[in-house]
């Protein structure tokens, strides 16, 4: 039976078990939208195409499935670029469908034409321009396969208007594609090396990253750490891959890592780095990173190996497969850590933790942002899906919301995209309508995609925005305070809307707390509502994120700020 391109698209999406599209219509995709109108396909209308990509991204990060969005050609397509680059940096599987002018007009500077495959080549895992109807079904199938296989990533599929209007035969069973799955070859010799290194090590440390979450290997990693009593630190993207409440957990490492995590990395003699890529925010100066350690690096992407940090033993492969192999090998060879030695190492770490715990200076007059996050953690029992914006709000969330489960922190790690949190939260909430989904935001970031409050209101997607409102671009201001003698060049955001009124104007509930005593009741009230809510917390204006490793320094050199401890 002959089907139109638009029909094939929707059928192919069903084949891929896509249950939701985030999108925005326009001239080049009118036919596709007409087909959606005639179908039962679930489509969420965002208010800006960037929001569509972030929503699909949030959906993907929370579920581990491919997020999908649909936008029109030209500006619709270019508006997706920040979202695509965000997903690309964090290896998030997305398929982004863009409309395109008819093939006969490509290259003519037609209305709303742009070379979106050219523009997105460096920030997608792969992209396609579908040149004729016969390629359509295969291209869609391949796009999904590429997005989710190996090291995942975003794939863009450009759909010219005439191709979507053309007809061809469609038989999903007959669609054949190339395989892009990364092949993991078990390497017993390497496992033997790891065993030998573990036996020799006095101070082993695990560093877990986003690859453990993407590879669904949190369980194996947790087993490895607990079984052999190896302490664990993690990157921002790795938070949740090891329980934040476990005594072996040291918190995040790097620029805003805990004192004890950074000291442990700088002191350890064996570093098992799993699913990480040694980003500069994590390592500080490369020369002084883990200076005493042999480094084992497990990662699916060979291009991550020896790129930033030279390692002693690379193991290329899917984190789950590699860790499963390692666990089996250690078990088969009856590896047991030296009890006294391990205890001494854990005691050394405990001393660091006692000397400089992760804390902040509490105040009875002014709301501390960290206090809001801690209270949120307590009230939700930690059982919430958290998105963040970027900057101080993100770092405080990473520090003070102890993530116990993978896929529960949804944050733009690599690209650091302001405006990510709200649309991402909408995507997460669409996937998990019964879970509490909270965007921990700053007043700068939230204004970058504030229009998505309308999306939340329209569909009653009950996301909760916890706005840590300090009237500054806080993280940039912090750098200006520390490195530019407090010359606050264009970081004062005091001129801002009344966020409560703004929320209400969008049809979203607005609440406000100005005193520490109000924090708990506002959070309780906001969390209890079955509708989207924005909670405006007027927080201490010039609070800094500490510890902080100054740029260009070793991560063992941390500024700790004024340290008046919590009582």
């Amino acid at each position, binding site marked *: 039976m002959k089907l139109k391109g638009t029909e094939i698209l929707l059928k192919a999406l069903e084949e891929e078990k896509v249950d939701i599209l985030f999108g925005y219509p326009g001239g080049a995709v009118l036919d596709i939208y007409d087909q959606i109108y005639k179908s039962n396909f679930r489509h969420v209308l965002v208010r800006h195409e960037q929001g569509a990509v972030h929503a699909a991204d949030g959906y993907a990060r929370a579920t581990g499935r491919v997020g999908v969005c649909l936008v029109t050609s030209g500006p619709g397509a270019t508006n997706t670029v920040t979202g695509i680059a965000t997903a690309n940096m964090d290896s998030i599987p997305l398929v982004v469908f863009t409309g395109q002018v008819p093939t006969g007009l490509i290259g003519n500077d037609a209305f709303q034409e742009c070379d979106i*495959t*050219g523009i997105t*080549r*460096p920030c997608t*895992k*792969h992209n396609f*321009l579908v040149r004729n109807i016969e390629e359509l079904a295969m291209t869609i199938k391949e796009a999904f396969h*590429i997005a989710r296989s190996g*090291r995942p990533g975003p794939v863009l599929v450009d759909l010219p208007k005439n191709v979507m209007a053309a007809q061809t035969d469609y038989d999903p069973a007959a669609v054949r594609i190339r395989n*892009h799955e990364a092949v993991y070859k078990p390497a017993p010799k390497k496992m033997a090396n790891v065993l030998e290194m573990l036996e020799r090590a006095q101070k082993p440390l695990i560093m877990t990253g986003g690859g453990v979450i993407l590879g669904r290997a949190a369980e194996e990693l947790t087993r490895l750490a607990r079984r052999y009593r190896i302490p664990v630190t993690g990157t921002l993207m790795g938070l949740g891959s090891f329980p934040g409440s476990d005594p072996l957990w040291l918190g995040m490492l790097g620029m805003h890592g805990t004192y004890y995590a950074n000291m442990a990395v700088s002191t350890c003699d064996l570093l098992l780095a799993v699913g990480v890529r040694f980003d500069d925010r994590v390592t500080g100066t490369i020369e002084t990173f883990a200076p005493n350690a042999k480094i084992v690096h497990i990662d699916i*992407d*060979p*291009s991550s*190996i*020896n*790129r930033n940090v030279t390692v002693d033993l690379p193991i290329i492969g899917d984190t789950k497969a590699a860790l499963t192999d390692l666990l089996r090998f250690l078990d088969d060879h009856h590896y047991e850590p030296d009890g006294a030695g391990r205890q001494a190492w854990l005691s050394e770490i405990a001393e660091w933790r006692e000397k400089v715990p992760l804390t902040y200076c509490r105040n009875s007059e002014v709301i501390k942002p960290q206090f809001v996050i801690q209270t949120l953690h307590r009230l939700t029992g930690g059982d919430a899906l958290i998105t963040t914006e970027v900057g101080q709000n993100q770092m405080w969330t990473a520090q003070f919301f102890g993530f116990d489960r993978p896929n529960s922190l949804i944050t733009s790690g690599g690209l650091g995209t302001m405006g990510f949190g709200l649309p991402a939260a909408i995507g997460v909430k669409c996937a998990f309508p019964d879970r509490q989904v909270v965007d921990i935001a700053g007043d700068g970031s939230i204004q970058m995609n504030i229009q998505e409050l309308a999306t939340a209101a329209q569909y009653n997607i009950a996301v909760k925005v916890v706005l840590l409102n300090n009237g500054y671009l806080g993280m940039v201001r912090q750098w200006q305070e520390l490195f530019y003698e407090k010359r606050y060049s264009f970081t004062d955001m005091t001129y801002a809307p009344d966020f409560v009124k703004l929320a209400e104007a969008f049809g979203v509930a607005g609440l406000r707390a100005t005193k520490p005593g109000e924090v708990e009741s506002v959070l309780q009230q906001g969390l209890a509502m079955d509708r989207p809510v924005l909670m405006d917390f007027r927080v201490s204006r010039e609070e800094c994120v500490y510890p902080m490793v100054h740029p260009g320094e070793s991560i063992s050199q941390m500024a700790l700020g004024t340290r008046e401890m919590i009582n």
Partner: protein
Amino acid sequence: MEKKDHIISILVYNKPDVLARIAGTLGGKGYNIDSLCVNTTTQKDISKIVMTTCGSQATVTRIENQLQRLVDVISVEDLTNVESIHREMVLVRLNRTPANTEAVKKAVDDNRWKVIVSGDAFVIIEITGDKTQIDFALARLEPLGVADITRTGLVALKLED
């Protein structure tokens, strides 16, 4: 680490923008392509790209890894230390004058180069060889009045698989 020339042979699916992907990947990551040769293989949907680049072994390994990530790349091999033959070709147009006719003829005969077109005012010579031979030829012809040249990228073929 010591920098040297590397010859990288890349098999790719013959897709419209595969060359743009490869060039973009290397350019975007700050690597330089010194010479490039692309054409189809005996399988019409597969092309071979031979590229030369200068860098340390570590840099070249990174280049290989980056290329290997591309969906349309089938395989990447560094032929630098593999037994293989290397050829480039150059077409040279020389202005013909009464003064240089004899010298041009002698240079061509001595080196067994090939004259492809011979006109009253000019002559076009085809020269193939490895990089050293081409460099030598161009140096030899330069004083005789070279009007223009076109030089291919390097092609390389392994002696055995």
